[in-house]
């Protein structure tokens, strides 16, 4: 690798892959909430079910629109017929919940026994007349948030083309009948004429509104989001449309949109942190030849308002153990805030899809005059903990398996999964990121007089 020879450039390392992360099937937890008329059926074993039940905690009880198709010994040894079994379960789901789409989540087990979900789906779809989407979100191939990527990539195939969409929207048109025409034209005048833009990545609705509004200020119109609030409202995606990702873990979706739907990908840093958000908007505008207005002041204003948080972390160091692929963007933002970062662990690094983000990271390090972090793909948690003991970072961003043990050893931690569930995108939510990042440090400020940092007995030296 040529990059390693230049000390100022990014360094990439790859370890053993013995690290802790969530199974990618966890994506059903946020996707079923996002896509309100969906039902997620995870086809796997007790192991998968127990994970969801424990990882999702309270949500499991709120009559979730997801369930396990639990494979039994007969399914594994092919004594039972997959098609008939799935049909029985899907009919039951149709009867009880009547969803607009059933998403099948393939797991490690379906991979190993080579259950042909992609082959079964179209047949069954026709027979029970509910669309079925198949996503292979398994732990053999993917980590945590990449689960969303596999689902959205599969969903990209189901986005309508112009003609279909018109047929589909016949009913809403009927409902809009008589709506004042001025409203519609007035709307249009606020936008600059540019090719259609579809954004991809699942975000909570308030964040969607927020980012839509941010682009509207620049005269950019978003013609749709993948995913939408309802499956029935999936955006039209035609050849030649522009697309842009809002999260760093969506490389398969991006690839699908480019290759299969013939879209043009706007490769930009991700709208996480004010620096990222500005760079993201600027990149989109530059592609459409739009001159941005007021962005610099907007960013400056946000930074100014973050100062009370930033002064808590300026000059401190942060170590990412790596488990959700948001690491590069978060590290870049925290370096912008004045932190240093010796290591960014990350499950998987798509240097092409994240190119603009990586460039911005490098630029940010130079601007802030701090060393460029080492990026460790497929990290080894055991080695990382050794490095943490040596480096003594002020903050470790890590999974729950390591958080309490590290805290007991006097090392501050922030649970990484919170970043996937909190609202972190756009100018407005920069504060929320820092709220999370500074929480352990603020807690320490409150408790610092007590002298209770290390709460484990000295371990015997081997």
């Amino acid at each position: 690798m040529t990059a390693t020879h230049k000390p100022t450039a990014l360094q990439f390392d790859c370890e053993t892959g013995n690290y802790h992360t969530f199974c990618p099937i966890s994506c059903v937890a946020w996707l079923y909430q996002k896509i309100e008329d969906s039902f997620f059926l995870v086809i796997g074993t007790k192991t998968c079910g127990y994970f969801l039940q424990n990882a999702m905690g309270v949500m499991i009880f709120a009559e979730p629109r997801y369930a396990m198709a639990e494979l039994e010994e007969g399914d594994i040894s092919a004594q039972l017929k997959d098609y008939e079994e799935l049909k029985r379960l899907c009919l039951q789901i149709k009867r009880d919940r009547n969803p607009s789409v059933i998403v099948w989540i393939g797991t490690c087990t379906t991979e190993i026994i080579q259950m042909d979900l992609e082959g079964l789906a179209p047949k069954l779809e026709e027979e029970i007349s509910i669309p079925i989407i198949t996503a292979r979100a398994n732990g053999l191939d993917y980590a945590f948030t990449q689960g969303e990527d596999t689902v959205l990539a599969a969903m990209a195939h189901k986005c309508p083309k112009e003609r279909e969409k018109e047929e589909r929207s016949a009913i809403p048109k009927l409902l809009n009948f008589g709506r004042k025409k001025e409203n519609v034209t007035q709307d249009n005048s606020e936008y600059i004429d540019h090719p259609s833009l579809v954004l991809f990545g699942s975000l909570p609705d308030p964040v969607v509104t927020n980012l839509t509004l941010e682009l509207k200020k620049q005269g950019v119109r978003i013609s749709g989001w993948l995913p939408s609030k309802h499956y029935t409202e999936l955006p039209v995606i035609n050849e030649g449309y522009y697309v842009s990702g809002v999260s760093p873990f969506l490389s398969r979706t991006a690839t699908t949109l480019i290759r299969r739907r013939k879209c043009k990908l706007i490769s930009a840093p991700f709208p996480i942190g004010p620096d990222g958000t500005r760079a993201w908007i600027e990149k989109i505008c530059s592609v459409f030849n739009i001159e941005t207005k007021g962005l610099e002041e907007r960013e400056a204003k946000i930074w100014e308002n973050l100062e009370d948080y930033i002064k808590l972390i300026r000059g401190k160091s942060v170590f990412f153990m790596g488990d959700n692929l948001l690491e590069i963007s978060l590290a870049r933002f925290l370096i912008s805030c004045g932190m240093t970062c010796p290591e960014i662990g990350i499950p998987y690094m798509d240097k092409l899809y994240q190119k603009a983000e990586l460039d911005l990271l490098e630029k940010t390090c130079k601007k802030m005059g701090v060393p460029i972090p080492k990026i460790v793909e497929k990290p080894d948690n055991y080695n990382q903990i050794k490095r943490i003991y040596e480096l003594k970072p002020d903050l470790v961003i890590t999974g729950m398996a390591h958080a309490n043990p590290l805290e007991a050893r006097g090392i501050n931690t922030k649970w990484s999964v919170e970043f996937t569930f909190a609202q972190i995108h756009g100018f407005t939510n920069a504060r929320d990121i820092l709220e999370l990042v500074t929480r352990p440090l603020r807690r320490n400020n409150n408790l610092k007089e007590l002298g209770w940092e290390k709460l484990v007995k000295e371990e015997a030296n081997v």
Partner: protein
Amino acid sequence: MKLAYWMYAGPAHIGTLRIASSFRNVHAIMHAPLGDDYFNVMRSMLERERNFTPVTASIVDRNVLAQGSQEKVVNNILRKDREENPDLIILTPTCTSSILQEDLANFVDRAQIDMKGDVMLADVNHYRYNELQAADKTLHQVIKFYLEKDKKQGELPQRKTEKPSVNIIGMSTLGFHNKHDCTELKRLMKDLGIEINEVIPEGASVHDLKNLPKAWFNLVPYRELGLIVAQYLQEEFGTPYVDITPMGVLETARCIRKIQQVINEQGANVDFEKNIREQTLHVSQAAWFSRSIDCQNLTGKKAVVFGDNTHAAAMTKILTLEMGINVVLAGTYCKYDEKWFTEQVSKYCDQVLISDDNAEIGDAIALLEPSAIFGTQMERHIGKRLGIPCGVISSPIHIQNFPIGYKPFCGYEGTNQITDLIYNSFTLGMEAHLLEIFGGHDTKEVITKRISTNSNLDWNKEAQAELNKIPSFVRNKVQCNTEKFAREHKFSTITLEVMYAAKESVEA
């Protein structure tokens, strides 16, 4: 294939990992894909464990799928042996490795050659056993392995201890109130003048297992974990065992009498009757409670009990025999051991339900309309939906069921804790019911939590819609802050832009 939303007992490997991580200096290596090591999260979160959970994964990925694990598993075992020097490494199969059918036993044999510690393969089939059965089997496997090894090396002690002594078998990590039960049982034994020989697996070292035959008897407080070991020790060394769960006043007394019999048969000559009487009448408050007016009010009230075998059976007996409550349904999810459960409770309840389908249990509860439920976290949520109070008496459990305060279920202090649990569940239910009849504490509906309501601010349609999307528990705060911001900046209408501006400003 089975449509499942919830499961009562976890997969087999969880049971194995619970045993491995209960022992001191034993490490488990899972042969599993990425993400299957969430056991570490459960242990670290639920038990608030300060130490790293001694479980790592030897990751099964695409390459393993294509070419087999080859050296990977062996290397991972050897690496862990070097890094942490465990006494024992347990290679743990998962659902994935069950179907891959790799020869894990062979990996273990190969690794053993180059290791300082011991290594074994947990012999549990994912598709045949659940968490509880697997834990039971793994514990047996470990005990047998070490006792046979020590026997071969002639290291087994030949004689029993001088004074009567006991092994407490079945205390494990992530067990329901296990830590507190363990302390309480130790205390109980001390009161009876019985020495604690060994407690397994929690906190035990594999080097101490050779001492197990020194005990006069074994106590197995939980039906689910330890019975196989106790039976093994009886066959191998003639050590008798007591498997009466000392939960509730009557059962605790029965357990103590059995202990008396067992040690007297070995020449102890003790009489615990006075002790039982003293404890029952004066230390435990449960006997007095059942006499008191409070408990009188509970007479004939309907309750449903559901949980694992041990707790559901004990609870059913306590409710019926000690408090005069009418148990309309007692059930367990331990389907593999249903005969035992039916035998234990059928005299004390109207109906027995053996099922691991939470919908079936939910439907039964809805139909029976009990005044209180005693069950797992699942039943607690069923109760919430139906407006019926629920006391949690058994796994599966959440973090709130790992209390920091001392809350045993076993022994005499356990009877006090259980009494509180039962009484609080029922009175809460009664109180809610009375409130409903009389229209609540405060019949005037509070319209807003804010002090000032007559703001002249106008929320436009989009902003109002956005506000409504915010989860209810923070909505008020957001509304307040936004309005404060709007007033300060002289906005008369709150639009989406104002909302975001408010959020971005420091003042908000």
